[in-house]
Structure formats: C-alpha cells, structure tokens
C-alpha cells in the first residue's frame, strides 16, 4: 500500500498522512452502519422495529443523527475544568484510533507494519483510560467521576486477561506482528489459531481446548475493555447517568460515541486477527487476494461486532464485585492454565 502511494505521490510526508488516514475512511462509514445495526438488532430482539421513516426502514437515521449532533449546542458546564473537558474526547478517540495502526485490514494494507503490533495495541489503548479519567474529572460531576474511576479500574484489571490471552495466540504463532500472525494462519479455516494453527494433527488436537478457551476469554475481556454491556458499569445508565460522558453534548459526545464504536471494532479485529485468520479466506485459495482479504476481514469483524451487540441486548449488567471476580478469579487462572499447557505442548 505504501509502495503504491509512494509511486503515486513521490516520497513525501503526504504518503504517511494518507496511509494513517485510511482507517478513518473505514471507521466513519462503519460507525454509521453499526449505529443502525445496534438500533435495529436491539429493536428486533425486543420485538420492536426501530427507525422506519428516514429512508427505507430508517437506514438514513444515523446520518440524521450526525446532522443533529453537528447542530447541537456544545455546552460546557460552568464549573468544569474547561481545558481538560475539551481535550478528553479527542484523547479517548486517539487511544482507539491509534490502535488501528497495527491492524492488518488486508494483505496489502496495515497502517504500521511494526514488529510488536499486538503489544503496541495493548499499550496504546491505555491512552483511552487517561482520556476517560480526564473526562470524568473535568466534568466536575461526582457521578461522572465515579464512572471514570470504575472505567479505569475495570480497564486496568481486564488488561491482564486480554494480554494473557493474546499471549496464548502469540506463543503459537511466534510473532507479535498481526500481519505475520495472519500469514501464519493462511490456507483455510482449519489453519486458524482457534483450531490449533497449521501444526501437526496431534498437536492441533491437544491445543484445541486451550485455544478455544483463550479465544473465548479474549473476546470476553475485550468486551470488558471497551465498557460494553454486560461490563458497562462505567456507563451504568441506571446509577451513573452515562458516567463519564454525562456532561458532554453535541460533537464532543459524538466523538465519545465514535471512539466506543471504533473500540468495538478494534476488539473484534484483534480477536479475528489473532484467532480467526484475519483477512485470510476460510476456504484456502478460494476467494483470496488483497480485495477479498479486506472483505473477509470486515466480514469476520462485523460478525463479532454483531456478537457484541447480541450480548449487549441479552445480558444484564454485572455488579462491581462480580466484575472483579470474573477478571481475577476466573479468567486469569484459566489463562494461566492455558499458557502453561500451550507452552508445554509446543515445546514437547
């Protein structure tokens, strides 16, 4: 991708700017689609129909929402810390957008082909924690601060299972670069890490239970990291009135929302790249190539976005102690077992 851009534009900084902006071209329409998807899926799961009047079955409603949000007055509470209040949404979005730099969208495009891709994503998304804390603090509203605190505590504790379950996949693939991880899984769905990767059959069968477990745990911990139901304690409408973004309105609120949806896809993208073969075709050579790769990647990613929506509209919110119990007493010990077992199987 960069070579192509360099041929087109010559060796200028523009090449990198365009390369960095490409994921945005994906995220913006994706967010519109997902807002609609979330509304439609939630409505139909509750036997409702959601938007029906803006366009065919209300497909234009997200556009209308954006126009509304653009027009809305941008209020800042009088007692808020104005500098931090303005900065926070951008920091939150920056945290999730920066994560997209190491996501391989197709065999031809990855924002930054660095050696430590997943590790970088885990690290850079912690910017969002600071952004959330900043938003909660700057709002000068005790519920917002509560939400921000909960969010930070939650993200910090769920970083452990996330990192450990990433580690399981990394142990099998032997690389932290998601592009290499994806190449490793090329050649059909039976080569995906969730099914043990392209290893000899006996090893695959031995690995299968552990990879399945860590795959599930990565998904669960990912949902918790992006603060979505059933782990949406930081937003908890019933107690905290949206938590850290209560005081935000207009475009700043929209950016929080965009960051949330970007995060939802980021989690799906990590799960897909690590365990489900990323942009590789599930049928070997059939329908493979850079364009089809992008299609497969987005299709798999959207499936997990749908899963997250599905879970959100099924399960109720956890209590704080249950949340911490799940992270420290269930997910982490299970992953330790997985890591030991996978290491043992790979070495022996």
């Amino acid at each position, binding site marked *: 991708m960069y070579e192509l851009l360099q041929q087109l534009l010559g060796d200028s*900084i523009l090449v*990198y700017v365009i390369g960095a902006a490409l994921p945005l071209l994906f995220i913006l329409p994706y967010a519109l689609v997902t807002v609609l998807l979330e509304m439609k899926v939630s409505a139909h799961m509750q036997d409702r129909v959601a938007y029906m009047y803006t366009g065919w079955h209300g497909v234009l409603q997200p556009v209308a929402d954006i126009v509304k949000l653009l027009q809305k007055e941008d209020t800042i509470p009088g007692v808020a*810390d104005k*500098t*931090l209040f303005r*900065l926070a949404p951008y920091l939150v979005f920056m945290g999730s957008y920066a994560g997209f730099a190491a996501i391989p969208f197709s065999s031809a495009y990855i924002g930054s082909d*660095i*050696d*430590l891709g997943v*590790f*970088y994503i*885990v*690290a*850079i998304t*912690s*910017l969002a*924690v*600071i952004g959330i*804390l*900043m938003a909660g*603090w700057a709002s*000068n509203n*005790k519920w917002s*601060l509560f939400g921000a*605190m909960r969010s*930070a505590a939650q993200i*910090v504790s769920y*970083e452990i299972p996330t990192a450990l379950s990433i580690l399981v996949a990394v142990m099998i693939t032997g690389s*932290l670069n998601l592009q290499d991880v994806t190449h490793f899984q090329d050649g059909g769905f039976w080569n995906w890490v969730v099914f043990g990767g392209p290893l000899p059959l006996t090893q695959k069968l031995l690995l299968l239970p552990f990879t399945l477990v860590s795959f599930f745990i990565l998904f669960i911990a990912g949902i918790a990291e992006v603060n979505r139901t059933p782990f949406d304690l930081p937003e908890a409408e019933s107690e905290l009135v949206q938590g850290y973004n209560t005081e935000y309105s207009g475009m700043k609120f929209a950016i929080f929302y965009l960051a949330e949806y970007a995060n939802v896809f980021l989690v799906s993208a990590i799960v897909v790249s690590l365990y489900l073969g990323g942009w590789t075709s599930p049928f070997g050579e059939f329908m493979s190539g850079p364009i089809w790769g992008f299609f497969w990647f987005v299709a798999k990613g959207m499936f997990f976005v749908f899963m997250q929506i599905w879970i959100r509209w099924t399960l109720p919110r956890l209590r704080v102690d249950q949340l911490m119990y799940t992270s420290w007493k269930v997910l982490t010990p299970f992953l330790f077992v997985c890591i030991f077992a996978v290491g043992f199987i790979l070495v022996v």
Partner: protein
Amino acid sequence: MDLYAVVFYAFAFITLAAGAIVVFSRNIVHAAFALLFAFFGVAGLYVLLMADFLAITQLLIYVGGILVLVLFGVMLTSNTIDVQMKTSTIQTFPAVLIVAALAGTLIGIFWSTDWKTTTDPPIQATAPKIGEMMLTSYLLPFEIASVVLLVALVGAAMIARREKKA
C-alpha cells in the same frame, strides 16, 4: 530538515512542553495529566531511536499503569470535587541549588562523554533479542525483579485485605 528531524523536534517539543506544565502548573490534576504527554513524547523519542520495545513498554507501564495510579492518588486523596488543589512554591533557594547541581552534573556528563557513533544497521526486531537475553544472560536480575514484584503484590494484598471480625 527531513522527516526524521521534524518528528524528532515534534516529540521533543511535546515532551518539554508537557514537562514544563508538570513543573509550573499550580493545578495538581493538570500536572498529572500533562505527565501523560511527557511520557508519550519520551515514548516517541524511543521509537526514533529504534527502541520500539522500550517505547511500547514505556506507554504500557507509565501511561497505562503508573499514571493511572498517580491520577487515582490525586483524585482520591481528599475532598477534591469542590476544592481546587493548588501547589505553591516554597523553599526556592534550596531547590534552585539542588537543581543547579543536578543540571551541572548532567551537562558535565553530557560534555565529557565520548559519544560513539555506529554505522551498524539498527536491529529491526528488538523483542526476540530482548526476550532471549532476559531468559539467558540476564536471567538472575530478571528473576530477582520478578520476586521483588511478587513480594510487593503479596504485601499489597495483605494490606488491602480486610480483617475478618471474629
């Protein structure tokens, strides 16, 4: 000025400006948040030095861990919702003395060191090398560090644990 220099000066400026805010801001929370950009700028400088593992670890540990702790500390220490926390300058003279001495030492070291330049191509993949080194040549320090951390963890759990009333 090539791209490298532009990026270097950008990160250097971010680091220094944020550091200045940390030092001069009267608002403790602002100082804590400015620390984020200081850490971030330093991480950027590490990347420019081809130390990607160090850069990412810097982000993960300082931004994701220590800064969050600092913020929690600042936010939870007192009744901070209404009170504007301010810092003030006291003991200017001793501070100036110490800072001057420290700066003098550092600058002295900077001038007296024989900075070597190498023409070797930088190592592209640092992580495998670092991992190998940690588990072979530097195993003992690595293990000692992990034991220290384990002790800290156990201690923290001990302190945090509420005594069950009999």
